């Protein structure tokens, strides 16, 4: 079958989705995907980031599809013509979805362990705006403890449901799922039960944002201060591929993750023993440093170059925070003198 994406033609096998075809072509035409995960069944179609325009349905039925289609769940047809990056409509739709994903997101990247390897950051960088139109109160959730290894930050969740698919696919006794409805839908065990399955750690790897992070790595380091190395060990856990990336600071292994490809999907799933318990260099056969994208945040720490003065292209005074929040900040224990108070009000402290 022949399919054309942004003017580039490719032969694909029947059953290939538009997104898969685009990934075969590669480059800028590949739609962003926040919920689809090729290694997990029944994922995709939910986040709407990968919407594309089908300008021609197929050779047999050349009519264009009236609505934008989720490329991760739409199959290719022979002769299909798709516009991804080339379509203004698609760009607009992706901007819209990005805005929707961000309105209730806490935007707490400065204290988020995912920062630097976050798909939502990447999406925002590509399709987001630096100004917000959302002035309402953000939605928040009560925190829930789901065990000693995984930190759940529901406020950051985008409900891709990949973690539910991990539990369905890799374990036989799922204890967490999506509870409640609408914009209060949340990932939870409902009974604050520890998710202690041997493969539960993969939830962290598949999470596109900082909603599920590694408690053993919590606040240890920013990811870009770590040096990632590919490593492996003879793991005896059935189903564990034993191939990982270890994230090092000096000679210390601070974190172990699955080995991710250019779409941030793991090559194989690993067990919790490899992930959480093997933090000694002697546990691993180190293969060598990982390649990383030239434009990635991690790269920032790896080459010295002259830095320009940083200019934050955003609203005036965003560092001051919102006026209503500033009012709530009271620091009576540390009294400021008159001048300092004035400066504080102006947000310059």
């Amino acid at each position, binding site marked *: 079958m022949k399919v054309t994406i942004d003017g580039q033609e490719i032969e694909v096998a029947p059953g290939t989705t538009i997104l898969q075809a685009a990934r075969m072509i590669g480059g800028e035409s590949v739609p962003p995907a926040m919920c689809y995960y090729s290694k997990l069944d029944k994922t995709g179609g939910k986040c709407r980031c990968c919407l594309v325009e089908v300008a021609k349905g197929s050779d047999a039925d050349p009519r264009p599809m009236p609505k934008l289609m989720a490329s991760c769940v739409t199959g290719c047809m022979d002769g299909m013509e798709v516009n991804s990056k080339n379509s203004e409509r698609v760009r607009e739709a992706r901007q819209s979805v990005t805005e929707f994903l961000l309105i209730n997101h806490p935007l707490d990247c400065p204290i988020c362990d995912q920062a630097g390897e976050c798909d939502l950051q990447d999406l925002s960088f590509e399709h987001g705006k630096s100004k917000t139109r959302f002035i309402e109160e953000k939605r928040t*959730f*009560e*925190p*829930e*403890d789901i065990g000693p290894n995984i930190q759940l930050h*529901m406020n950051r969740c985008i409900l891709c449901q990949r973690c539910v698919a991990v539990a369905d696919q890799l374990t036989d*006794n*799922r*204890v*967490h*799922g*999506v*509870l*409640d*409805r609408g914009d209060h839908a*949340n990932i*939870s*065990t*409902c*009974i*604050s039960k520890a998710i202690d399955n041997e493969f539960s750690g993969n939830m962290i790897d598949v999470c596109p944002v900082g909603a599920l992070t590694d408690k053993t790595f919590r606040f240890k380091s920013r990811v870009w201060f770590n040096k990632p190395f590919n490593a492996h060990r003879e793991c005896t856990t059935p189903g564990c591929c034993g191939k990982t990336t270890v994230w090092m600071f000096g000679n210390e292994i601070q974190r172990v993750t699955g080995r991710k490809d250019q779409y941030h999907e793991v090559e194989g799933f690993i067990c919790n023993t490899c992930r959480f318990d093997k933090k000694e260099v002697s546990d691993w056969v180190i293969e060598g440093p990982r390649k990383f994208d030239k434009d990635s945040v991690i790269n920032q720490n790896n080459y010295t170059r002259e830095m320009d003065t940083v200019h934050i292209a955003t609203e005036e005074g965003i560092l001051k925070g919102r006026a209503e929040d500033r009012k709530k900040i009271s620091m009576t224990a540390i009294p400021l003198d008159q001048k300092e108070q004035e400066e504080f009000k102006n947000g310059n402290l």
Partner: protein
Amino acid sequence: MERTHHKQEINMTETLMNRINELISHYPEDKKKSALLPVLHEVQDAHDNWLSIELMDKVAEILEILPIEVYEVATFYTMFNLKPIGKYMFEFCQTSCCCLRGTEDLMDYTCEKLGVGIGETTPDGLFEVRGVECLGACGYAPMMQLGDFYKEHLTREKIDQLIADCRDNKIILHDK
């Protein structure tokens, strides 16, 4: 999300189990999960109109599914109550068509009369007032749901009467 859990006495009577088994028989043998919604309605009706974690676990056991599958469903649908509620729950339809006919004033009236706010239970545990979305009785507004039944064309006088009837134990909540 962290939830508060309440204790509930579970009593799976023979009548209830017979009814559950009848409902299960409505679906193919390997599709027991399909009976989940009707079964949850039945056990909720038989347990003071709410579902505790223990009760949901019991349902999971009967239907041979995972407890989380029951929690996921029970939290999705608004008719399942996950904490104890007032015996007589006045569920006023507050969607536009009913509002055109004065629902909001009537809700204020009821709340004032019972001395509660919307979503609150009276201290004696008898009454609760709620605003819910369209109940499909727009032409008979204002109206409310009380148990399995609708009370329509409501007026202040009818509300007074209903409250009195509830207090006198004259209201049937479920059609069994």
